[in-house]
């Protein structure tokens, strides 16, 4: 493709990115250094960043995010992998079950939240009390796992389908058990898929919002960084601190992505060293 063709493809996408991402993101960064005094915007320097360091509610929310991350790792990624391995064979029953497990992931999380909220409601729900303080984050993680494990199952099924049949055949001939085949052959060959799944799960845990907002609004035991952010901007009209939280959330997502990428390199490096 010549230069002109490249420009034709590049410019529209760049303009959309510029208008809908770059300009608002820069605006958010600028806003995070300003405060509102009546109708006037005043430069506040690093006031909100300093405040974020000591904001106990933010720290509690961050803790909830991390707790949610760990639980969803189990209920989404590990459960998705288990489902994929369990339903790998192409039987009619398995095909039906795959559709059944995948179907919740096409639902809107708000709808999922409202339905589960009703099930967990005191007085009328079949599991009352699940959203009380001691269980709220775990209950939300289970709901999230119910809704998303099918999606991860599909990713892992695609990865499993890409494993060369001759490798599995050779393992069978060598007398490897199903367990050994999984640990020694399938799992190492799924590393790229696992990396993608971890990336989606980790970043998703920081981007989470809808289930928490629908199920435990206003309760600090169920707050996460994104709900604090939305409350600051929407409820309290505090764009400065809300923007600071948005910047910090972006940094956290980038750091998490960096850690996952680092882990991948470490894993690949170790494998390559072993292969040598």
């Amino acid at each position, binding site marked *: 493709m010549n230069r002109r063709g490249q420009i034709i493809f590049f410019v*529209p996408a760049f303009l959309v990115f510029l208008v809908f991402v770059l300009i608002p993101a820069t605006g958010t960064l600028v806003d995070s250094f300003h*405060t509102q005094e009546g109708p006037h915007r005043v430069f506040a320097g690093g006031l909100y960043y300093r405040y974020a360091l000591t904001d106990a509610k933010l720290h509690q929310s961050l803790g909830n995010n991390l707790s949610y991350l760990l639980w969803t790792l189990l209920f989404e990624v590990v459960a998705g992998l288990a489902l994929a391995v369990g339903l790998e064979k192409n039987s009619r029953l398995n095909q039906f079950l795959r559709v059944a497990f995948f179907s919740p992931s096409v639902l809107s999380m708000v709808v999922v939240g409202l339905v589960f909220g009703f099930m967990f409601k*005191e007085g009328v729900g079949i599991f009352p009390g699940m959203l*009380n303080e001691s269980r709220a984050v775990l209950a939300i993680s289970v709901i999230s796992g119910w809704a998303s494990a099918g999606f991860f199952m599909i990713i892992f099924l695609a990865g499993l389908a890409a494993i060369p049949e001759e490798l599995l055949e050779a393992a069978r001939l060598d007398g490897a058990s199903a367990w050994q085949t999984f640990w020694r052959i399938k799992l190492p060959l799924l590393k790229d898929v696992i990396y993608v799944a971890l990336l989606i799960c980790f970043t998703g845990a920081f981007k989470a919002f809808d289930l928490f907002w629908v199920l435990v609004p206003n309760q600090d035991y169920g707050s996460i960084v994104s709900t604090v952010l939305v409350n600051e901007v929407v*409820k*309290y009209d*505090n764009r400065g601190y809300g923007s600071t939280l948005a910047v910090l959330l972006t940094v956290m997502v980038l750091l998490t992505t960096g850690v996952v990428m680092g882990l991948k390199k470490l894993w690949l490096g170790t494998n390559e060293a072993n292969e040598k």
Partner: protein
Amino acid sequence: MKPATVIGLVVALLAVVLWGDRLRLSTPTPGKLRFSHTYTTESEQGILHEVIAEFERAHPGVRVEQTIANSETYQTVGWRLQFRGRQQPDIFFLWQGYKVDYAIENGWALDVTPLLSSSFVEQFVPAAIHRQNGGIYHLPQSVDISNLVWYNQAVFQRLGLTEPATLPEWLALCTRLRRDNLLPLGQGNRDLWPMGNFGAELLGQALGAEELSHLFQAGREVTPGQLRGLETFTRLRDEGGLDLPGVLARDAIGSLGDIDAKVLFLSGKSAQHVVGSWFLADIQDARSKGELKFPAGFFPVPAAPGETNAMTAVTTGFMVNRQTKNPRAAAEFLELLLSRKYQEQFAQLGNLSARRDAAEFTTDPLAKKMLAVLAATPVSVPPPDTGYRPEQAAVFYEMVGKLLTGKLSDAQAAGYWSAEKASLARKGL
């Protein structure tokens, strides 16, 4: 097609998408009155259509366009955001207190004093008309009482109970109800405001309006003695006033929504329910559908002997945008809407009019009683979420929520609130 042409077309398309609305005529528009409010029910809309039709007949060149918002959305964000766009309202609904002050401070509100006919303001009870910066910016539509103890009259009659006159009497009544295996008080505090508003009233009774307002001021330290009014919550919680095995679990109050709690009462599962005067509309609705199986009554939250008989109430009403091109028409529209003719119709829906003659045209016995209660109340305190800065109200609501779920003791509550206020101060609030 040349790349430059493609780029040009894309830029033009983006410009139209992003800023195309600016090609429209600038607003507010002469000849049109934009009226934003939260009157969503069919009956309320029926009255408004009549007001608008009469107004448009008398003002042939002016058309009234309604912007109807969901109450919760409007209360949290809509009331502010409507001034960020180009479709600003000419007339808008607002709760008296912090939001009205904010609107005036931000230049969204017009002093309507010179536009009103001479005797108009005198038609309202003086407490509902606030003069700010020497002018009148907010014209009252109704008074909402935030906390009333609604009760099941059939249960009270069966047990030989009468409406309590003092707080100790009421607490004893709650204990009695629980002893008879009834849920004394069905409350849902998931959204924090229901019990937060109740807590503000208890504090208002213990401290009076002025000292209560000091508690919500930035940076002010709170002492345990100032929160003695909230001991009622601890007693209610500890003596089973808020739970009943098999009906409502002990720690359920924090996860139960206000609507769920309302349903608990209307379905006869709780003997009492504390909520505002607007609950009358729900009772009338349930009664008209044949869903309410018992007669309901109410009494104001009683004060302890020696305390102030304070009541939490807020005036709702309308303001005129300072940017309006039709200030006189806007004022005339409000005069018509707030006239006896239409306030009488709103009163049939359970609305407590702020007009002096409200008692004459309010026919519902419960609504009449509310007017009498309001008239007899010596001190009125605002519900925190409309009276004070939202962040200051929010930390109070959180503290009340923690008290009710046992996460804070009475002794710890003042320290928690002070620490939260200090934290807000570090954020510049």
